[in-house]
């Protein structure tokens, strides 16, 4: 019965497409990094669609290879400098969740870590405010975001309630 099989094939296709639209999309920065790549894998495994923010076009090739099993859930947005105001405006269109991992790490010859760390974070948040579809922003800091700059020791318990100055 070709009509019945055609009916089911269309039905399955429709259900499949509907499911694709239902699954939220997460924009992820820092996906080329050690933590970001594992976060991306977990998001893909959980069924989310992902849009990976990269600085250069070529970075997409390696990520496509690593996540080849999930090609249909992968999308890329090129943002050469995330610290520029409005850098994320286009990339954020249609995004439900933002996962922001990109941040400077100490390396020789870096004179200023402070500006990119602050501007990278604020730029994502400021752009997200303008995009109504964004429901949540997850930002990866470090335990150090909650530890005072002066030396600590003697079994201090870090609870996250440390005043920040």
């Amino acid at each position, binding site marked *: 019965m070709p009509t019945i099989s055609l009916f089911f094939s269309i039905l399955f296709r429709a259900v499949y497409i509907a499911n694709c639209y239902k699954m*939220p999309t997460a924009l992820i920065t820092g996906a080329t*990094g*050690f*933590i970001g*790549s*594992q*976060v991306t*894998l*977990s*998001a893909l495994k*959980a069924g*989310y669609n992902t849009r990976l923010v990269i600085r250069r076009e070529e970075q997409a090739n*390696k990520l496509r290879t*690593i996540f080849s099993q999930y090609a249909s859930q992968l999308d890329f947005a090129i943002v050469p400098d995330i610290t520029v105001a409005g850098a994320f405006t286009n990339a954020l269109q249609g995004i439900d*969740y933002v*996962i922001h991992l990109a*941040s*400077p*790490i*100490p390396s020789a010859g*870096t*004179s*200023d*870590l*402070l*500006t*990119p*760390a*602050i501007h*990278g*974070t*604020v730029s994502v*948040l*400021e752009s997200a*405010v303008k995009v109504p579809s*964004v*429901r*949540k*922003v*997850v*930002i*990866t*800091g*470090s*335990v*150090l*975001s*909650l*530890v005072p*700059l002066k030396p*600590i*020791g*003697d*079994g*201090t*318990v*870090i*609870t*996250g309630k440390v005043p*920040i100055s």
Partner: protein
Amino acid sequence: MDPGQVRTLDPMSQYHASKLAAHKATLDFYTEKKPSFDIVTLHPVFVYGHSLVQETADQLGGTNGLLFQFLFSEKPSAGQYLGVHVEDVALAHIKALDENIRGLQSYLLASPRRSWSEVKAFVQTQYPSLPIKLDAADDSVTYTVDTTRAKSDLGIHFKGMEQQIQDVVDQQLKLQL
């Protein structure tokens, strides 16, 4: 924080200052702008585990590289072993998307602290031919991290030091072949 003053600090303190400043910027943004979306901030200690992006042995770097430095130095620059498995950190990001996590929330991510003596004993048993230099005579507790909320809200059962070290060392040994 004054950027000019921060530039005079050593690289690790500069990094530390950048983390404090970025987090403060997030808190200020939430208070001032009252966004319609939720914000979750995650705060891992040293992150260890299998790397999906490392292709060769000499690309060992970041925190996994630091772990090797700790194992192969007589006196590690950190007073104790404080780590979290990269897969637990990844999981925390996905659990943070749950719609029950609302408003502004921050979570510390860490497995229980361990002494360098315990680390040395584990590595020597697991990898008897690995010539580690770790001299763990001077065990100290610098700080511990309260992860109660990550366990209860995000449902994370943190993988311990053994799993973290094994996943780093196994990958590195395989890449060195």
